[in-house]
């Protein structure tokens, strides 16, 4: 596979898409951990939902 004289444009495009998708995945994964951690901290401090169920248990 040869990319010809415009290889830098093609490689930059693919690298940029990979980087942005990776950033989205990492951002969503970190946000999920952060929200679960905050819920655990709140429940540990004695605050519970009106239903009485654990807010951090999503199964």
């Amino acid at each position: 596979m040869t990319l010809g004289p415009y290889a830098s444009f093609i490689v930059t495009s693919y690298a940029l898409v990979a980087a942005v998708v990776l950033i989205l995945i990492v951002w969503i994964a970190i946000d999920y951990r952060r929200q679960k951690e905050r819920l655990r901290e709140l429940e540990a401090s004695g605050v519970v939902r009106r239903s009485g169920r654990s807010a951090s248990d999503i199964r």
Partner: protein
Amino acid sequence: MTLIDLANPTKFLSLTGRILPWLAAATAILLVIGFYQAAMAPDDYQQGATVKIMFIHVPNAWLSMFVWGVMSLAALGTLVWRHPLADVAAKAAAPIGAAFTFLALVTGSLWGRPMWGTYWQWDARLTSVLILFLMYLGLIALWRAVDDPSRAARAAAILTLVGALNLPIIKFSVDWWNTLHQPASVLRMGGPTLDRAFLIPLLVMAIGFSLLFVTLHLAAMRNEILRRRVRSLQIMQASQQAA
């Protein structure tokens, strides 16, 4: 589980927990196949190897509009049916849609430089997509500016529906005005004009990126539901401390 059951955030969380790993695996497999097919696709007789940019530019461009369409349906869900997950869906989709639109603009620009001789042209297609990107940013800013998510949801829903007027302008801009951008070559009356050697990898990539959106969107919706639970527990904690 019926569709009505999904209106319950707890049941929605339970479902996403079960299907997200499968969706992520299907997305990864399709994208690996798509990238391989894109790498192996022949050069175009006019564009040479730069045609490979099409395999990532077009799915991102499609998704930039599709995500706004999803947000518009969610906006109707907020305003008309007051569905509990509608504004969660709209809020979670906005940053993902903004990312796809950004990628459509930048990859289009990187494709345009060698083919058109310029990175940017203020023509109808490019300008209307830039407006779409700015609308995504405006919507994200609106969600962040209003503290109460249910109050923000109504304003965001109205803005989303107004912004949906831009979607047909983007789609038909290449037919209505004289633009540098090529006319539609896949979703058009009379069928695609692309050769199978390009069409099949493009469709695989489009399905792969669409599944990527579904996966990211469900995961982001799960985060948003948890964020709202954090908020309501914090309010309860504050009221307990005040009492």
